[in-house]
């Protein structure tokens, strides 16, 4: 069963408008969330993250919002640019039971197309 869910496999947005990518999670032990961007035939690139003690983190055009009660986070891209067209993965982590280590649990990704 998916612990991290990205229910929209694809999203199409006009250049200059806002892109909103959504992510839901089921495990209440997750305390850190990350967004990655992936182009075809390349590895994922880290974009932005947020700790569960915050509800918002902003970095340039990218803002991540976290709603812990709803177990929901979203990535906002404003303004969207054609170069933002890629697959966006949401990932979550929690401390493992043994030791001081973490693993990332990944969503299936949302393919964003920004049209000129």
């Amino acid at each position, binding site marked *: 069963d998916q612990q991290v869910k990205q229910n929209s496999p694809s999203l199409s947005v006009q250049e200059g408008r806002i892109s909103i990518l959504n992510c839901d999670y089921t495990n209440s032990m997750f305390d850190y969330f990350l967004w*990655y961007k992936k182009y075809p035939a390349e*590895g994922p690139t880290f974009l932005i993250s947020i*700790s569960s003690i915050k509800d918002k983190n902003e970095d340039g055009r990218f803002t991540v919002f976290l709603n812990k009660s709803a177990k929901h986070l979203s990535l906002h891209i404003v303004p969207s640019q054609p170069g933002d067209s890629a697959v966006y993965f949401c990932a979550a982590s929690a401390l493992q039971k043994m030791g001081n280590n973490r*693993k990332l649990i990944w969503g299936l990704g949302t393919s964003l197309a920004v049209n000129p």
Partner: protein
Amino acid sequence: EADIYQTPRYLVIGTGKKITLECSQTMGHDKMYWYQQDPGMELHLIHYSYGVNSTEKGDLSSESTVSRIRTEHFPLTLESARPSHTSQYLCASSIPGTSGNEQFFGPGTRLTVL
């Protein structure tokens, strides 16, 4: 930012061949990971290492094996490749002490087994 290198980028090989996918990082990261990803699917962790001589199997069962003899090198080996091994293989490492486990990825190896 980490520099992670993977070779080859693309590999087409016949069934039964032994292959080794190379992964190296130059930042001295202790933690390294191998993921397998198919189109439209999430990244599946197949192996990880928390340091030299430390290797663990990930969440997805894999017939591959890994070794970690040096901090910077984390190769993945398939003793006998099969068509079911066709996938993209991604190597990553993470910064020591980083909360949340922010990982940096290599470009990946696209493996096709005929």
